[in-house]
């Protein structure tokens, strides 16, 4: 709470140079403070009333604070008037007293006015924030619904085209077969997109659940690499899995880490040159296991480096359409395991994406 208030004040101060009215108010305030110091022997008084005025401005209203300022100065003036009269004051003393009262009054009013500006800005900002959060939720809701509704018919298209492909090997002409294949492949691709959208919606809504189980990690990675080898063979790429050290058994969420490995491996295969080798390296350190994917592709552009793991970010260089979600989802999953994810460009060509998982 206190930290928030502090942040608000810092934010207000940082905005002062941009706003003429706020700058003017600040200069007046500084002049008034100086006048108060120069004329008065009673700073304690101003601070005492200032505190009440600030509270009233923030929690009630500016007009209440100004009314309070007027009343307090009036009462102060009367008390002082009586006191100095009892001490046989002369004409000049009354002039000084009136001057002091006016300076203090202006000081209080200016301060409360500045605070009320701050309050107004804060209210606007809070409302905007609220609207943004609501908009974000609404977006997630619609993406969720759209993805759900698309998923059912799409799964039927996928399944039926796979049946058609299967039975069509004997009965269809090569042209018809390639059309059926096209339907099947595109439906698989669309399904992947929808799954990514659903994952992001879930993650953004804070529903990323990690269900860990004790598993043989090295065997798990080898299995995935074997499955993806089929994909790799189409580009004549070989996937080489290498264990630099012994990999202990540890707990991780098989489904989620499968998704991460598939994303990174798919990217590595996608960007690598044909007739090359994608290297997957596993090594265990004292408290974590590192998995690295080295491709033979063009490497990561400098402009993409800082934004690559952002949700919906797509490299401009990339011609193909993608969701820009794979890496963002991977990052969330790895972080939910208390691991780290990153990449480096390799000298010469290619890049290495890596992630770590704690051994537990």
């Amino acid at each position, binding site marked *: 709470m206190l930290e928030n208030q502090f942040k608000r004040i810092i934010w207000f101060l940082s905005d002062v140079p941009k706003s003429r009215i706020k700058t003017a108010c600040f200069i007046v305030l500084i002049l008034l403070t100086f006048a108060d110091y120069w004329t008065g022997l009673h700073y304690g008084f101003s601070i005492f009333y200032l505190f009440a005025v600030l509270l009233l401005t923030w929690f009630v209203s500016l007009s209440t604070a100004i009314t309070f300022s007027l009343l307090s100065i009036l009462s102060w003036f009367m008390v002082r008037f009586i006191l100095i009269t009892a001490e046989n004051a002369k004409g000049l003393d009354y002039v000084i007293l009136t001057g002091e009262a006016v300076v203090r009054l202006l000081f209080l009013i200016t301060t409360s006015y500045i605070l009320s500006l701050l309050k107004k800005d804060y209210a606007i900002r809070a409302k905007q924030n609220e609207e943004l959060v609501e908009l974000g939720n609404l977006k997630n809701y619609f993406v969720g619904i759209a993805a*759900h509704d698309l*998923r*059912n018919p*799409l*799964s*039927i298209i*996928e*399944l039926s085209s796979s*049946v058609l492909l299967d*039975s069509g090997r004997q009965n269809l002409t090569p042209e018809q077969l390639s059309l059926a294949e096209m339907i099947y492949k595109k439906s698989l691709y669309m399904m992947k997109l929808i799954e990514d959208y659903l994952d992001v919606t879930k993650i953004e809504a804070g529903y990323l659940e990690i269900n860990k189980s004790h598993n043989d990690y090295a065997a798990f990675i080898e299995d995935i690499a074997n499955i993806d080898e089929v994909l790799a063979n189409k580009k004549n790429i070989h996937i080489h899995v290498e264990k630099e050290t012994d990999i202990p058994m540890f707990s991780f969420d098989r489904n989620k880490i499968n998704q991460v490995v598939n994303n990174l491996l798919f990217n590595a295969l996608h960007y690598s040159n044909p007739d090359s080798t994608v290297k997957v390296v596993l090594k265990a350190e004292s408290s974590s296991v590192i998995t690295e994917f080295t491709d033979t592709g063009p490497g990561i552009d400098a402009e993409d480096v800082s934004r690559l793991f952002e949700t919906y970010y797509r490299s401009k260089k990339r011609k193909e359409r993608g969701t820009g979600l794979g890496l963002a989802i991977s990052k969330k999953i790895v972080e939910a395991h208390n691991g780290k994810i990153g990449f480096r460009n390799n000298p010469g060509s290619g890049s290495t994406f890596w992630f770590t998982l704690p051994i537990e």
Partner: protein
Amino acid sequence: MAEKILIVDDEPDMLKLLSMIIREKSPYEVTTTNNPVEAIELAKKGGFDLVISDLKMPGLDGIEIIEAVKRLDEDTPVVIITAYGTVESASEAMLKGGFDFITKPFRKEQILFTIDKALKWLKVQKENKMLKEQIKKGEG
């Protein structure tokens, strides 16, 4: 005699596809309905070795189908088909006595594999019972 399978799903296309896949790739007999209430009526008439049901349907859901089937014959395995994001309710279905669940989208090998697994389990279950009865008779 071929084993009989009952499939319940509110999506007629899914029913058509599933029965095509099963008929083409396996010797089992398939009956389908897109009305869960009718499914229970069909189950009452009996003779099904396996029930495959969608989890979310208007009217009756998959969990109620499991309960109804289990009331009729405790041994009949029920396989649940569920959409993405409803794995939690699918686990509830397992607690209620569901045999297994498959998440959409699935490959045809997946559904065929699960059907075989369920029917094998049923066979073992039946043999077990028979053996126990024989032992009982022997003891008696």
